[in-house]
């Protein structure tokens, strides 16, 4: 018989046949004894068991990897957030066609782009007027001509940081490498780093004129209350 299980520890609901109920919560790994169960009534939205979510613990050891509610991220900082993907392209039309037609993306050349081999900015889902996503947990990104990448090893994502120079110092201090110092592209400041494992990424300094009222700059670390 199909049932809805809600984990008492993390609040995650899932519906499975009773015989296929996992031994551990697929979200937080708590054991089955923490599952609250109720009958399946045809739609998970009809469930009646809801669990208050756990709250962040400000004194938690950041190296402890047991399940916990995500920490409170600081206000007025985008530091550390993975903000964009960057994919190299070879054939412009073929690549653009694929993403527009089979992935439903909205793709535009960036403002100062080369007309023949443009840097393309891609909306992959709902967004606001400033071309930032309007919904959490996905990102927009770039399609970039392969020959225009700055380093031999291609960075494929962008992490936003408060300050490039300070991040470069920390990168080296904690076992990474600086592959390209601060540079400007399309009115933004970037650098390229390699982490301690060899993963390569752009870092992007939060622009000085960032609007801290925009949805993407907020820092609430829990679900909004239901209205």
């Amino acid at each position, binding site marked *: 018989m199909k049932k809805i299980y809600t984990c008492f520890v993390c609040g995650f609901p899932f519906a499975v046949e009773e015989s296929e109920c996992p031994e551990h919560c697929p979200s937080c790994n708590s054991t089955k004894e923490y599952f609250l169960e109720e009958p399946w009534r045809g739609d998970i939205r009809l469930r009646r068991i809801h669990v208050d979510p756990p709250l962040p613990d400000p004194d938690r050891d950041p190296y402890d990897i047991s399940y916990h509610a995500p920490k409170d991220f600081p206000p007025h900082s985008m530091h550390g*957030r993975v*903000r964009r993907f960057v994919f190299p392209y070879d054939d412009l039309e073929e690549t653009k066609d694929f993403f527009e037609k089979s*992935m439903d993306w909205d793709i535009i050349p960036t403002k100062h782009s080369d007309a023949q081999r443009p840097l393309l900015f891609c909306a992959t889902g709902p967004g606001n*007027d400033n071309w930032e996503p309007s919904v*959490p947990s996905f990102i927009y990104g770039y399609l970039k001509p392969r020959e225009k990448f700055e380093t031999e090893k291609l960075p494929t994502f962008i992490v936003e940081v408060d300050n490039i120079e300070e991040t470069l110092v920390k990168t080296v201090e904690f076992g990474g490498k600086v592959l390209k110092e601060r540079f400007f592209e399309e009115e933004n400041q970037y650098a390229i780093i390699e982490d301690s494992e060899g*993963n390569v990424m752009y870092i992007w300094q939060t622009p000085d004129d960032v609007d801290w009222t925009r949805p993407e700059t907020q820092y609430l670390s829990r*679900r909004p209350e239901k209205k």
Partner: protein
Amino acid sequence: MSNKATDTYPYRAPKKYPNKDLHGRMRILSMAYKDFKRFQKFYVNVFGWDMFELPESAGGAPQGSETPSLLIATGPSYETYEGVVPGHLNVSAHYAEGEMEDPVFCAELHMDRPIKETLEDMLAHGAVLLGDMPKESEGWSTGAAIKDPSGNRINVWKCPSSRTWEEPETGYDKEEQE
């Protein structure tokens, strides 16, 4: 679908996504490491990332492994480690058994369509399927890996029907349905 004019380049907002569907959204970045402690020290200190051990039942390594699989909040997130404000995404990390692996993004696919149909549409537009055509399942593991026409690997995933649509990440342009 109309696009409202705006004052700044490109003088229009992105197109609307009026369907109850997350198809095409880049949803998670998967990274590899060779040395867990070194990886953790780097990302906790350089970027302030917050990580926990991904359960085995969700595809993680056995609990307590010295090479754990991780789910990582890179910015504000809620208890399931999905982002809770727009504009960033979270990361999964795992031990690279052999040679170091490149970071890979995971995109979500249509929930209301057989995965085979969605993938066949992608193949018709120039993608290459890596491995066999996946079988449909009700669990969390219905997915595949493709390469786009420029050779970029993208993992693709179909969410099971247990999504409640109350999750913050499931929003879409509802007003356009009026």
